[in-house]
Structures are given as C-alpha cells and as structure tokens.
C-alpha cells in the first residue's frame, strides 16, 4: 500500500499524465481544437505538472527525515516544465497579438531555463543529459532571441515566427521532461 501511495503521489505519475494530456492536445488537438479548448487543455496539463512538482516536493520533504536532492531536482524540473508549457502554449493559443505571444514564450523559456539552472547547480548533473539540454536550449535561443530583442524594441513578430519559437521551446521542454520521468538515465 505504501508503495502504491508513493507511486500515486510521485511527481513522475502526475507529470507523466500531464505530459501525455499536453502532448495529445499539442499533437492532435491543435488542428481541430479551438483556441479556447487548446488554452484550457494545455493550461490543465501545465498546472497538473506544476502541482505534481510541488506535491512531490512536499511529499518527499515531509516524509523523509532529510531532504534528498534527487526528488527536489525532479520536482523542480516538473514545476519548471509544467508552468513553462502552460505559459508558452497558452500564449501561443492567442496569436492575434504576436508580441504578447513572444513574451509568453519567453516567460515560458525563462521558467524552463530556471529549471535547468537548478539542475546544473545541483552537483548531480549528468553530462549526457546536459549535452542534450544544451543543444535544445541553443536551438530555442537561436529562434527566440532575435524575436525577443525585436519585441523589446516594439517590433511584432509574425504568427509563423511565434509558432516556430514555441515549437523549439516544446523540444527543450521535452528534454527536461524526459530526464525527469526516465529512471533509466542513471541521473535519477
């Protein structure tokens, strides 16, 4: 029973469910769903993953005499990925204002960066994972940074550019998620 409860309360469980819901909406829902449905679905997925991180953090913190760094790292990554997905996709569902969309994607990228930053500072970072994160992050930066710089000077990007930035960000979020939920990486 304790093992079952631990599984149900684990960030991996909620995170995986939330990631699946989010992926479903992103991959299959986008052409069919209205902007409102997409916003709702991705917000639920993002909040789910974010809350999973917080629940996981509290669960491990309350139930262990000393805080192990690994659950904290995993929880932090889930919080980062969850809110990052929520902000980015919610913003992207409202492409009528590309500047707001780009700032949404930037904010989401910032949250994902904060999660990576926490992981890198943990002293437990696996170089193989860091290499993947670095590649995905640089891809986002290459697409997003010029658009963000332009937006900061009042120049609005096109909807296609905003979507391209969101797509690159989703790939970065996927690497963070993969690390968090895959126990075979050796880093968990």
């Amino acid at each position: 029973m304790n093992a079952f409860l631990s599984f149900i309360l684990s960030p991996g469980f909620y995170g995986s469910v939330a990631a699946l819901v989010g992926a479903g909406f992103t991959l299959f829902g986008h052409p069919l769903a209205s902007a409102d449905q997409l916003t709702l679905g991705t917000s639920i997925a993002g909040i789910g993953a974010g809350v999973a991180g917080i629940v996981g953090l509290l669960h491990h913190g309350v139930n262990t005499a000393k805080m192990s760094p690994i659950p904290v790292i995993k929880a932090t990554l889930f919080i980062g990925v969850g809110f990052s997905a929520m902000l980015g996709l919610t913003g992207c569902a409202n492409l009528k204002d590309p500047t707001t969309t780009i700032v949404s994607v930037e904010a989401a990228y910032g949250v994902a960066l904060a999660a990576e930053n926490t992981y890198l500072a943990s002293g437990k970072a696996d170089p193989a994972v860091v290499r993947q994160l670095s590649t995905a992050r640089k891809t986002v930066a290459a697409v997003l940074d010029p658009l963000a710089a332009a937006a900061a000077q009042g120049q609005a990007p096109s909807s296609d550019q905003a979507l391209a930035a969101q797509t690159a960000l989703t790939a970065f979020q996927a690497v963070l998620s993969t690390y968090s939920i895959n126990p075979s990486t050796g880093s968990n």
Partner: protein
Amino acid sequence: MPIAIILQILSAAAQLLPEIEQVLPAVTKIVNGQEVSEADAAAVYAAIQSLEAQVAAKEETILGG
C-alpha cells in the same frame, strides 16, 4: 480559467524558483488577458538574457568548454 488560482500557484512556484519572479509581472498581464507593453517585453528580455548567460556558463563548466 481560474486566473487567481494560476497566479497563486505561480507565486508559490516563485518561492522555489526565484527566477520566476522576474517574469511574473508580464505573466500576470498575460493570464489576465492584457496585452504586454514594450517595457514589459524589454524587462522579460533582459531577465532571460541574464538567465541564459548563467545557464550557458554552467553547461560549459560541466561539459568542459
């Protein structure tokens, strides 16, 4: 969406991830359905550039340049 709940959870997350605080004002506008200003965009851009530099430096240290 229950915007108040989103903001409450985000504020809680900001306790754990201080960097979130830097983008919170713009995020608050976005989830409230308001358009962001040029100043908001500039503030978020500056925060992201700073964070990006920190992360890049740490990656370089771990990957050995």
